[in-house]
């Protein structure tokens, strides 16, 4: 699997992502610069976490207009796989590649702790390492992770099975008490219609090494390798 990681000014989790990908693929991901206009031959494009353009104005708004996003959009339209984590998720919604938007956390504070995610849809390139209903742990670290969308969009996401993960407890219970940031329906991650673009707020890439507290995030990357290995 050839993966490329886009670096915007202010991106700060590209190294974490590269380490996680390297662990799964055994090869190094290509670092892409936000001003690039063409993508090399890739199976996966990743928009990693960070504070692109300082998160000024709205998180991800300025990065969504970067030159490289035109190429990322064409890549996605041609059926390419795109993963956006945290700031990457925000950029994908701002670019219109995923529905909805991410607002300030309901508690108005930056949050940094582990959360549990319940897998809502199995069998995609991103979730084939899990079964629906599985629960895994992932660190979250964001100030703007409160997922919102209008009612129609939320119903469509539900109806079409486009919700990837919801915030839950360790047993898979999903309710207001397991919602860290106010997200509609506890949504932590969503797919595009064709299931090839995934955005999520927490950081599976930071939990792929027992030394760092676990390998709960590994199935995401191992699954991608199985699905996309050329």
């Amino acid at each position, binding site marked *: 699997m050839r993966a490329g990681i886009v670096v915007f*000014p*202010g991106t*700060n*989790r590209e*190294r*974490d992502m590269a*380490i*996680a990908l390297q662990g799964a693929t055994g090869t190094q991901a290509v670092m892409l610069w936000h001003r690039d206009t063409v993508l090399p031959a890739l199976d996966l494009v990743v928009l990693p*976490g*960070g*504070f692109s*353009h*300082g*998160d*000024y104005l709205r998180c991800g708004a300025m990065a969504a207009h970067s030159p490289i996003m035109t190429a990322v959009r064409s890549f996605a339209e041609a059926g390419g796989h795109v993963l956006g984590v945290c700031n990457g998720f925000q950029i994908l919604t701002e670019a219109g590649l995923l529905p909805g938007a991410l607002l300030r956390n309901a508690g108005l*504070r*930056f*949050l*940094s*702790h582990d959360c549990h995610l319940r897998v809502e849809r199995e069998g995609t390139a991103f979730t084939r390492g899990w079964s629906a209903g599985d629960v895994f742990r992932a*660190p979250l*670290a964001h*100030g703007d992770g409160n997922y919102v969308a209008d009612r129609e969009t939320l119903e469509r996401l539900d109806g079409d099975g486009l919700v990837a993960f919801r915030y839950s407890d360790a047993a898979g219970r999903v309710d207001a008490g397991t919602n860290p940031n106010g997200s509609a329906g506890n949504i932590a991650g969503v797919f595009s219609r064709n299931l090839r673009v995934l955005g999520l707020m927490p*950081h599976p*890439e*930071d939990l*792929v*090494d027992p*030394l*760092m*507290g676990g390998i709960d995030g590994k199935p995401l990357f191992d699954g991608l390798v199985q699905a996309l290995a050329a």
Partner: protein
Amino acid sequence: MIRQVDQALAREFGLTPDEYQNVLAIMGRAPSLTELGIFSVMWSEHCSYKSSRAFLRTLPTTAPWVIHGPGENAGVVDIGEGLAAIFKMESHNHPSFIEPYQGAATGVGGILRDVFTMGARPIANLNALRFGSPDNPATRRIVDGVVRGIGGYGNCVGVPTVGGEVNFHPAYDGNPLVNAMTVGIARQDRIFLSAAAGIGNPVVYVGSRTGRDGIHGATMASAEFDEDAQAKRPTVQVGDPFVEKLLIEACLELMQTDAIVAIQDMGAAGLTSSSVEMAGKGAVGIDLDLDAVPQRERGMTAYEMMLSESQERMLMVLRPDRTEVAQAIFEKWELDFAIIGTLTDTGHIVVRHKGRVEADIPLGPLAEQAPLYHRPTAPTPLREPLGPVSDPVGIEAALVRLVGSPDCASRAWIWDQYDSTVGGQTVRRPGAADAAIVRVEGTRIGLALTTDCTPRYVAADARTGGAQAVAEAWRNLTATGARPLAITDNLNFGNPEKPEVMGQFADAVSGMAEACLALDFPVVSGNVSLYNETRAPDGSTVSILPTPAIGGLGVLEDAATAVGLALAPDLDLVLIGET
């Protein structure tokens, strides 16, 4: 309206009559306004350490694993495999009282620059915080702003905040302490220093533009300029962590080349201290052309530019044949880049602006004749021994009370606002061990990091308290299985002109020195913050508790061997030492 430079103005700038006489002697004439500004900041307590220097010299600073001790931007120690840990702690106390969010945020920004200016990628931040009484309504606002500010800056630049400490005491009501520590990693053969060299080499300015931020910080007396000028000069600097992140990446990229001869961040008294220190350390002269300085505001004077404390700026001396390489890198990262001067053989700093020489000062005397005070000390009166303690509530209630007290309660509400995992190398997060553990990417090496001080002990007996703070850091490191290597410190005390405060300072430092020697645990960097006082309602001033905060660093050859503090069911508890 420009005031005449005289002794009265010098006093407003914080220079004593004797110090001003010294300026006259060095210059052989009355200084210009810009020259007076340069002298006053270089000879301020903050830059010259005039009250503390004599004592700091007594601290042990060497060991076989120490590569650079105090004197550089940060301390450097050998952690094996050709790598070095570079670290330092610094205070931003007064700014954090005036504007807690920005004060704390820019404190983090400043200490980060001290570390990456030496070639290190920052891999961890810590902090040591002291606030007033929780019952004081102002405390809530200050705590909230400080914690948000530390997170706001550290989270954005992508450096994990992995540890710290917090105490509450009424002595900090009007003077919170915000001490920030950064640890970075560099290859031992790629460490960058600040001594300028190479007559004719270009002096280059990079980073954010210069504005009228924080000119003369707190020492600026209000009478000196008309009100309009005052209003244009906010004393509060606003940080831009986004630009800092770009600056980190751009500097580290440039450091892969051979372009840099010397580099220094612009900290307190920005352009003045960085240019004076770089040229002074290299025993060369420096000519600055302020017309070339990137400016954010119109009509800035030489005085304002030399004293501005705008954030996120660096000064470098480059090889002349590499300026284009450097410029291309800074353009890529969308940062300002300007050649603003050259090194000379005159031994003077010469500042030109709009065709006029605004300052011309011999650097030798400016450094050598900086004031050095042996201020009177008075011994700290011994506290009465506590005597037998009665037990009015019973052990269970006492325990609950203790665990729930502000100094012992959980700090999760703080560290939950700090990104502690970015980088993917955090082995033990806040709360998981006596010291935070961060692995050095690409190796098995683990660094153990902690900040410690118990000001109550220092207040009771400064010598023992100073020694105990060092020992506490050492214990927290060893408790994780790490080998303690060295410390940085941040000596926060009251007004040094009060003999009893100076007595606390002297005793605490001697206690620290004793512990450092005994534990083979040298001081490799540090910072002193004096004049920390709370004004009481009756107008009198109360000094803070003496607070020599210690930042300790230790190493584990294999991060996987680190021990945390979570108890497992099948383990025995063993108590070591006398109770």
